[in-house]
């Protein structure tokens, strides 16, 4: 029962947050100087053309009125029409979402695997040079944000030793016989490993740039909580049963050390998703973030609104998911 109550409370605050985001974006972009309508008109258009277009996009009404109209649309799944491409915003945004999701999830997987291995290695060899080395590397990785790691990776593996692609999502000469835009996922399902390899080669650098800071955080937090756990009585008891260091770390300490790490990783993962905006720009990767920057530059108000709301939705969903996972993994919450 308390779990249900907590969940309900979470849902309510989630809605409040999303509503707040919507209000802020809406207000902020209505004060954008630079008339988006003017950019759409052919040269020589008259005053009444401008008024007609303004009416078409609802820009002739007051801001609260516009907001209510927009909100009404959103509740029916209508996010408006992009000013630059004149396609429905929802359609545009959903066409780019898979690319960003695949990138984020790949980055998350890299971060969890790398961070986990570093934490376990550091714990196993604690007190020695290896651990000191891991600590120094972690400190570096945490000090420098994804944007700079992206540039460093471009130089290292795109120019100096060009083993990976540093621009785009897929080579332009490849035909994509796919029915969804989850290319990476679908290429595996369709056993097209040639395309899969090309996708990975494009995705690996931006994903790694996003993953480096998160991997360092995971390594640091997990190692710290593993080391704290290693002093506890139940670990000592397991040793007296005849178990060695590796077993003790993985089976006794790890399940307990994961939980405190998990909640922080959830928040950090939303930072990672936020980082895709600039990383996609840097690697010319055709995802949501890249689209968002173009939308801002082109003053495409409905599109900006749609993308920001979608990001906010993803962030809040990730946090919700982390909460649920935490509850599912924690025996104290699972029962009673």
């Amino acid at each position, binding site marked *: 029962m308390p779990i249900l109550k907590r969940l309900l409370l979470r849902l309510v605050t989630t809605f409040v947050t999303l509503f707040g985001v919507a209000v802020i974006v809406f207000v902020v972009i209505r004060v954008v100087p630079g008339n988006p309508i003017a950019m759409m008109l052919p040269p020589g258009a008259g005053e009444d053309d401008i008024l007609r277009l303004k009416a078409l996009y609802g820009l002739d009404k007051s801001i609260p009125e516009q907001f209510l109209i927009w909100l009404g649309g959103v509740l029916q799944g209508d996010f408006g029409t992009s000013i630059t491409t004149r396609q429905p915003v929802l359609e545009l945004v959903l066409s780019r979402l898979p690319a960003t999701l695949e990138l984020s999830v790949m980055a998350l997987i890299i971060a969890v695997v790398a961070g986990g291995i570093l934490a376990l290695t550091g714990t196993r060899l604690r007190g020695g040079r290896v651990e000191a080395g891991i600590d120094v590397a972690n400190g570096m990785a945490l000090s420098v944000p994804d944007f700079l790691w992206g540039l460093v990776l471009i130089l290292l593996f795109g120019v100096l030793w060009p083993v990976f692609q540093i621009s785009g999502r897929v080579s332009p000469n490849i035909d994509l016989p796919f029915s969804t835009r989850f290319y990476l996922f679908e290429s595996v399902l369709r056993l097209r490993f040639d395309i899969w390899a090309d996708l990975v080669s494009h995705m690996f650098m931006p994903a790694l740039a996003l993953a480096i800071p998160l991997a360092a955080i995971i390594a640091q937090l997990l190692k710290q909580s593993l080391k704290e756990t290693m002093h506890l*009585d139940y670990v000592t008891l*397991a*040793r*007296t049963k*005849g*178990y060695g260091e590796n077993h003790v770390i993985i089976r*006794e300490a790890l*399940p*307990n050390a994961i939980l405190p790490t998990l909640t922080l990783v959830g928040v950090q993962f939303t930072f990672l998703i936020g980082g895709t905006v600039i990383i996609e720009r840097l690697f010319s990767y055709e995802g949501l973030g890249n689209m968002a920057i173009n939308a801002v530059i082109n003053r495409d108000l409905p599109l900006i609104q749609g993308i920001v709301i979608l990001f906010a939705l993803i962030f809040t969903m990730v946090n919700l998911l982390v909460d649920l996972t935490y509850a599912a993994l924690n025996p*104290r919450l699972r029962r009673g």
Partner: protein
Amino acid sequence: MSAFLTIEGLNVSLSGVLPILRSVDLAVHAGEVRGLVGESGAGKSMIGKAILGTLPRALRIESGRILLDGEDLQRMRPRDRRRLIGAKAALIPQDPLTALNPARRIGPQITDRLVDILGWRRRAALSRALELLDEVRITDPERVMRAYPHELSGGMRQRILIASAFAAEPRLIVADEPTTALDVTVQKQILRLIRDMQARHGTALLFVTHDLGVVSKICQTLTVLYGGLVLEDTTIEEFFAAPGHPYSAALLGATPKYTDPHGSLTPVPQSVIDAANAQLDAFDRARRQ
């Protein structure tokens, strides 16, 4: 009859600087219940940890031998040593609230040693665990096996830990202040349970405690430690009749008697402590030369 556990001249230090155990000799015979007594910091727990191979990393065995069932632990490969200890010895820990892994169910925490270290079949280990839970008088053992530690009381958890310690029929059990963390009412039950289990299984028991009252109820023999030095090694009858060392006598005076729990207590006098410290200094000097 040779002893099941023999410790000879064991010296343990903190990073080679601070002596923790000073040339300790100790023997526990099969089926013997030996008390290991001293104030906190006397090194009594460290002896238990040295036997079971769980000394903190900063502590080092400088010299001496620990023979478990005739095998010199220090000369064995780490993996063989761990497995020997896991098969022939066990620990009843001090604090039942922290000695069970909160993320794992009770069942596997009892059976894991049997399956992983001793190679039992899972089914056999499971029925053995149920049998033991029943033996330590836990009602509804099936339910308890599936429970997580936080769902059980402190007394229940200590019973489980006792059952788990006896699971592999070890020849020696180290009980490290097993009743200190419990309520007074539960203490007596647990103490009686340990004594009954010990008697039924014939296991040797090294009972680490600061409480002479507990010692008088359960132990046959007794070792008194001060500053990591063995001051006295005697039987219970002799000890309570006439302690062989002034410090022991003072310790006895500082313990409430079961016959007269509200009688006056004398703290260990400073002169006795000074004398004991002088003995430590003399020992260190002799060793350095």
